[in-house]
């Protein structure tokens, strides 16, 4: 259960070196000894980045690559088998993507698993090293905030990452993945009567304080299609930041979900959950920097905003009409409210925009953006955009894309498109999920300063063109499967 190496790599095939890479030389020596002749060493950074870019489809995106696309290649997600030169490969490489960067780790796993020729029978369920790699990478993501535009790191950021690795995962053994605790682990509390937990290395002096934030997200696919049902997911996370007294403090809070609770999955710091029909009472130890729990509410099937999108193409002239309707009862006060109409690979110029509210502009050459403002008109709770656009193909479209994109001579393909609705509402959750500040109790502190905030944001809120085809199928053979399983 040790890591052989970790990398941070840009999701950009032009960047040929990792932003950060760290190999554990002692683990590598053990690995070499364990594997003998079948040992595959970790290649130099450039070669690894290139091989990984190929494996994830950044390089040779439109072509068939046998080592990656062959039909008998075992699917062992979330691990990848990265093909190297001379018919060798590295497995398992765990990859997490975050903000345009790939965080990768390679755990050391038993030899017989790695060298097994036919990996189709392998299950990653037998390899806890992979779960450990996922935890380590989650910690690495939180350790420093990096963005996709970065091509290299400053020595200060590199040093911070090395410090995190050496403190929390010495020799590749992950002992703690919460970077928020790093500095406290180095200068922890001195002598105490009772054993000091690792998750609370320093005693808090001062007033106890608990800050809870509920972030709810709505993702949606609206088709306006008689045969295909719309899809919607309402889900969220509760984040709790606490500074409380005591050696082994315990916090209690109640999550209220008026529509009924369900789909609650919690941080390992939560010791117990008591459910009623609409509430969940959580008892937990401080777990700063990590979500306290995630919830999902499958019973919510109506979207907060209903959209209807029609796009017609007359060769390169696009006529589009977008109608949005806010559901009654939804807080009509947005921090962000806009609709994006992406036309990938095309240049867009607006001929005649006529929005009922807000303004229309073109971003990055290929996306039409309708900024509605901070609210829908109070009376109608609806907004409409009619626009005519001129589309032009980008000249630098490569032959690779042309083949992959099918017949590029016709404009018909662009009819199958969607609009993205982006919104953000502060101090509000669509599902009504909230945390009652009065319910917050800290076992070791009689008085606690509490603060509760919330927000509701859109995530993949797509409205498909009702004039085009939709990428989903009407029905799945639910009944037939049910019958088969009962048999």
């Amino acid at each position: 259960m040790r890591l052989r190496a970790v990398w941070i790599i840009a999701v950009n095939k032009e960047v040929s070196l990792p932003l950060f890479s760290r190999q554990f030389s002692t683990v590598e020596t053990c690995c070499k000894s364990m594997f003998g002749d079948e040992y595959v060493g970790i290649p130099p950074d450039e070669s690894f980045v290139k091989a990984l870019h190929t494996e994830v489809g950044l390089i040779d995106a439109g072509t068939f690559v046998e080592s990656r696309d062959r039909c008998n290649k075992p699917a062992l997600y979330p691990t990848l088998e990265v093909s190297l030169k001379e018919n060798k490969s590295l497995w398992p490489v765990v990859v997490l993507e975050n903000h345009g960067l790939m965080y990768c780790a390679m755990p050391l796993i038993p030899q017989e698993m790695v060298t097994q020729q036919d990996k189709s029978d392998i299950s990653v369920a037998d390899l806890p090293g992979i779960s450990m790699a996922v935890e380590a990478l989650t910690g690495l993501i939180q350790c420093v905030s990096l963005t996709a535009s970065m091509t290299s790191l400053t020595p200060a950021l590199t040093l911070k990452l090395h410090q995190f690795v050496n403190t929390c995962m010495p020799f590749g053994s992950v002992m703690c993945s919460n970077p928020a605790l790093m500095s406290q682990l180095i200068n922890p509390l001195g002598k105490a009567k009772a054993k000091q937990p690792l998750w609370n290395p320093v005693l808090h002096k001062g007033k106890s304080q608990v800050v809870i934030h509920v972030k709810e997200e709505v993702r949606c696919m609206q088709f306006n299609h008689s045969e295909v049902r719309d899809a919607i997911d309402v889900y969220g996370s509760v984040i709790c930041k606490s500074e409380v007294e005591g050696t082994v403090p315990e916090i209690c809070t109640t999550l209220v979900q008026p529509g009924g609770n369900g789909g609650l999955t919690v941080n390992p710091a939560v010791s117990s959950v008591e459910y009623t029909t609409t509430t969940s009472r959580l008892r937990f130890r401080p777990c700063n920097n990590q979500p306290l729990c995630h919830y999902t509410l499958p019973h919510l099937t109506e979207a907060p905003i209903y959209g209807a999108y029609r796009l017609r193409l007359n060769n390169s002239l696009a006529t589009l009409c977008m109608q949005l309707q806010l559901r009654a009862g939804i807080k009509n006060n947005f921090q962000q409210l806009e609709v994006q109409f992406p036309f990938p690979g095309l240049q867009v110029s607006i001929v005649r925009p006529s929005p009922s509210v807000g303004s229309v502009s073109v971003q990055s050459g290929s996306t039409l953006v309708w900024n509605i403002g901070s609210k829908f008109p109070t009376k109608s709770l609806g907004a409409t955009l009619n626009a005519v656009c001129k589309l032009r193909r980008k000249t630098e479209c490569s032959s690779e894309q042309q083949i992959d994109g099918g017949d590029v001579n016709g404009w018909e393909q662009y009819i199958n498109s969607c609009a993205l609705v982006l919104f953000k509402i502060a101090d509000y959750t669509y599902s009504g999920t909230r945390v009652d500040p009065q319910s917050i109790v800290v076992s070791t502190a009689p008085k606690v300063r509490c603060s509760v905030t919330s927000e509701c944001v859109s995530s993949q809120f797509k409205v498909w063109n009702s004039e085009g085809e939709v990428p989903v199928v009407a029905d799945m053979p639910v009944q037939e499967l049910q019958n088969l399983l009962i048999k």
Partner: protein
Amino acid sequence: MSEGDISCLHRNLSSLGLGCVSENTDTFSGLLDQLIKILLEEKGSKKFTLKYNVAIFIELESAALIFSAADVELIFATFKNVFQDCTKENYPFLQGQCLLSMTSVLMQAFEKVVEEEITVLFTEHVEFLFSLIKQTNNVNNIHVRSIAASCLSEIELFFPQILKDYVDSLYTAAVAETSIAHQSYMSLLALIINHSFADKIKASSLRGKYLIVQQKYSFIPQEVDTAIMGYPDLKEMLSFLVDQLPLCSTEGASWIAIQIIDMMLQRPDLQASAQVLKPLVLHFSSTYSPLAAHVVFLLEKHLGHLIFQEKDMIQLLQQLLLNSSHPSMSPPVRLLFLDWLSDLLIRRPEKINNIQNICFFFPGSFDGPETHLIKLKLLSSVLKIGKESSGVLLQTLASLQKQLKYKSSTKLKSALVKVLYRFLCDHCTLVMCTEVPRILVDITMEDISFTPYVLNFTQCVQDSFPKLSVPSCILTSLVMEFTQPESTATLATFHFVLDIFLMAIMQNICQPKVILNYLMKYVVCEEVCGLLNWTVGHQILSLCYKMMSNYDTVEFFYELCEVLKMFMANCEDVDLFDRAHIYHSLLVSLSNKKLKEVLVSPKQSIMASENTLLSTSSICRLDEPILQLKKEKRVIYSTEQCIPERILDVPEADILQLHTRQLSFVAKKPLIIKGRLNTTSKFVVKLQPIQALAIFFNAPESWGRIEPIMIGHYTKKNSDDYSELSHIVDIECFLCKPYPAIIQVCAEFSIKNVCYVCNLEPLTLDLPHFFQPLPVHDEYISASTIWRRALFSILWDSLEEKSVTAENTAFTSVCVLQQSREGLKRKLSEELEDCIVEDSKGQLLKSLHPFVCHCTCNNRKTTGQMKISVFWVVALCSLVYVNQRFRGHTASVIRAF
């Protein structure tokens, strides 16, 4: 070290802000000295970060920095020094790093130096770490003690069972410790106990590898007896470990729990205490953390019958279902839970009845290709084989097919063929065998770029299930579709169609006549043929070749003749024309039997390399060279030596005139440098015999040219016999301006009828390589020494004269070479023996064509009194290593010259 490793080392230096260190050093030992110097510099907060960075760098690159036991001792002594200094100033960060770096260096040292040499150091280090651990509840070094325990864990992982006698004292320390260091203590304790249960040390472990560690340490018992006897308070220790888990981080708790599970699997008698792990099941049963959830999963898998009740089982199932479809989770985490769920349902199929919402099994609107693939794979593995199951599975593909129709993406295509392959493997029913080809053909007809995926699918099915008719169904249908007049193929995509035809022909599953008629009508006709590119043209001809070699040509003689004739008439490329012409001639002039003999037998046939033309790249490029060409040491090969020396009177007046005349003749002759051709470590015996080897040199035009080297046959009997393959070759240089140059070298050769190309290491030619002895006039060949001496003194006088004239065509300068007299003399004798005209006491007389040199030596250092052209200065510098600046300066003068 490879180039990649060196560049990585330099990148690590600069990323840690130590770029300045590498600028001042060329060698690894020099680098280590610099780093040690930084570590030993005076104390102070400013130096803290620098020292910390250096310590990290040494940990990262320990393998590259150690060459001897002395290096290890030096690093250890330095870190100990830094460690003790930090104690006074309280820098736990740096102290911890010192321990990590020391341990890392020590472990690496076992790989790099003789193990006996580090025995004492290893023992001392282990005892030092233990002495730290024993300082329980010392508030000043909590972090350092945590790291010390981690270091010991690493040593135990390196050499299993090495620390097992320390269990009791470690247990006492772990119980007593109240600071956060207890987690590291507990982890170490759990690891040592677990290792002590192993029956014997694995031969592949490092402990098994190093005898010294296995036998000679006083603190290691010779007999493995603890496993049999057991620790008297083992159960107490386990209870202690489990009780303390809530105080550990999730990762620490999971790590210890997994060690305990492992212990229970190795020692079934401990399973009676399995109930102590039940609180873990309850605590982690609703978590989203992959590691914590994995502990629950492993408990169910290995000890489920002891601690899992039905409700726990249902809870685990529900949690796996929830986590594997929870929108808040990132896709990799969802896929991880999905894999475990699949494992659980395959092991316990009856649990499927507990799944209330079976819609879970179907891919959703938001699922990507990977999730589609894994969900459908799961469904395929849980359904029993049958007609109805096949029907349901095929219906579930609709979503993937629809997405593919909507957006052509590599990932979707790859996922679809992988799913279909899995379906066919798991449910090889009649329905499946009929429907899978239909689906694949339909998609290929809509999107021809799907062809390589279908062909790969066909090949894989053919290999795994040779009796199945699926591959032939697919290929027959595809050939039929693409030979229709309304075929969707265009010029840009026609190579896909040819791939299909070729595979169908190779597998003997279609009538060549159909393909030939199609080619005749739509491809090799006048309007289209000229538009075909070179690769497609060769693909068509490869197809014709395969038809000729695989089928009886009588059946389609007329059609094939027509295709080849039309091809010859309409193609514009000479290469294609020639190939088509050869095929046509063979076809019309040979009987079917003779044709097969010519085409099929690879040993006799010049067409044997046809196979290579099946792929679009007919030449294979090797990224790593398998051959190397090195310069041989300068050899005196003059024929003059065979002629006995005579004393002849050389008329001094004519010497210069004769010499000038001869120079023009000599200049036309090539300069021959001897080279040794050998194989590299990438060469394997099966890569031979190498035939038709041609080595090409790419020299700058202004410099001159080197003739290619041609070798007919190059072979080696076994991999150990290196002398077998070592060939001496003549590198013939025709020089225009003989300045130092790096010549690019590439080799082309053929192995088993496959043509290979690879770049060899560049050939570096420095000035000394161009020097030749002063030419001797033919008439005086038997008195070469006398001739050269005379010519030298005349040339020298002539130069001196020129140096004092107004034009100053020869330069005069004095420089001191940092080389002892003996050293210079030896160097010159070694490198330019054949050029020496006279070597008298205290004076070296050198004569070199076309330059001359006169070196005067004093007793200690060589003072070169050189009235010579600048070329020679560079040559001399390259021999005796004067400082870089001087060399650089001179080199720039040369370029200007």
